[in-house]
């Protein structure tokens, strides 16, 4: 079983991408041995009301059970509780990208959503970034999520569970070693932005932080899924650790 927690449907506002349709995503999953993908609505991340993109995710999931919806929540909109209620029975996680929404990741509105997600047993997903800073569109001035903000969120509620995508080794180490063991145990990191061999950042992190803290993610179609698959296959770890990263940590987080 291989679960990709970090996949997208739809177009990207800053450049042309291939593969944003459900059919092309499923084709890429088949090619790379991915059994299930947790999908977010890519263009909706940039909408003033990203929750308008959630219906498409639920609609696709009805006919394609391999695609599980990760609906977006906007803490500044009054519908946030209704979005969480709907997600509680139908989604493995919700995404709240405060930096994309232009709100304070550690503000009161975010705090309320964190508590609401905890009450409903939902993990919260968020992206550090989506694209390499060297080639972003001039109008893409969205700041990267910071390690301090992730640490703050982990401390905002003693039961919150986070899935953070697109983080590099330095980011992960700043959060992990800046947190208590109990705090660090409530965050999962997807591997899409980590260096595989021969840099071996994933190997290093699995050795120092533990395989329990990582999950498989591709960032497709913004990134080719073969990159994360190669990292996973080249990872020097036990079969149990590989299975945990490949699927069990993600499925356990959303249970």
């Amino acid at each position: 079983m291989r679960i990709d927690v970090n996949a997208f449907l739809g177009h990207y506002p800053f450049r042309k991408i291939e593969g944003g349709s459900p059919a092309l995503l499923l084709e890429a999953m088949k090619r790379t041995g991915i059994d299930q993908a947790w999908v977010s609505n890519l263009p909706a991340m940039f909408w003033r009301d990203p929750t308008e993109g959630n219906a498409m995710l639920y609609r696709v999931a009805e006919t394609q059970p391999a695609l599980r919806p990760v609906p977006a929540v906007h803490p500044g909109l009054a519908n946030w509780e209704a979005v969480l209620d709907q997600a509680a029975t139908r989604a493995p996680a919700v995404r709240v990208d405060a930096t994309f929404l232009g709100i304070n990741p550690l503000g009161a509105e975010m705090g309320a959503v964190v508590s609401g997600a905890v009450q409903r047993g939902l993990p919260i997903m968020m992206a550090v970034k989506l694209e390499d800073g060297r080639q972003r569109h001039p109008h893409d001035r969205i700041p990267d999520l910071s390690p301090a903000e992730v640490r703050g969120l982990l401390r905002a509620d003693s039961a919150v569970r986070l899935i953070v995508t697109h983080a590099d080794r330095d980011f992960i180490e700043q959060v992990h070693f800046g947190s208590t063991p109990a705090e660090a145990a409530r965050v999962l990191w997807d591997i899409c932005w980590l260096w595989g061999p021969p840099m071996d950042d994933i190997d290093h992190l699995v050795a120092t932080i533990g395989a329990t803290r990582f999950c498989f993610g591709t960032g497709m179609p913004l990134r080719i899924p073969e990159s994360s698959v190669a990292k996973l296959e080249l990872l020097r770890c036990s079969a149990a650790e590989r299975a945990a990263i490949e699927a069990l940590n993600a499925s356990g987080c959303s249970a």
Partner: protein
Amino acid sequence: MANDALLELILAHPDRIKGYVAVSPNFTDHALGEIDRCLAVGMIGVKLAASRRCTDPLLDPVVERAGRGGVPVLHHIWQNRRREWPGQEASDAAELCVLAKRHPAVPFLLAHIGGGGDWLHSLHVARLQPNVFVELSGSGVDGGMLEACVDQIGVDRLIWGADLTLCTGWAKLRYLEHLLPADAVEKIAWRNAAGIFPRGAFGAA
């Protein structure tokens, strides 16, 4: 010193490791001497990695010497080019193609399309200069990048690279196998390289 260290590796693994002689065009005499010395003992290309925009006339004697030696010139492109700003010192496809146009008989490698700058910017320029080959390595694995390389440059001027010891390049090779027929992948994986490096550089290839 770096060239000497590389020569040691080449001598230890002559069938598996081939070398670029790295030179700084800021020191012309030394650069030319290094090219002569290292090509004489089996290096197969010249690498430009110094902070000197490759439109600079200082590059010309280096490229001429590479051309006389029958070896390609690899330029590690740098700095993104989304826009111009004061003091910018980018040296990517735009600059490399100016140099390549001055030396049409010398093959150039634009390294690394997945890590040296903005590939969307670079490909529009590189497509127009037939002696510039686009090398595919770098940490960037953007969806659509390899399709754009194929569309803009064509499979005859793409060259696979790993960028060891940072990346393996394996993921891109796998994706190319999905994207293209086997003969086109073969061109990118090694045939195109065999065509621009000295005859016999890769054994019987």
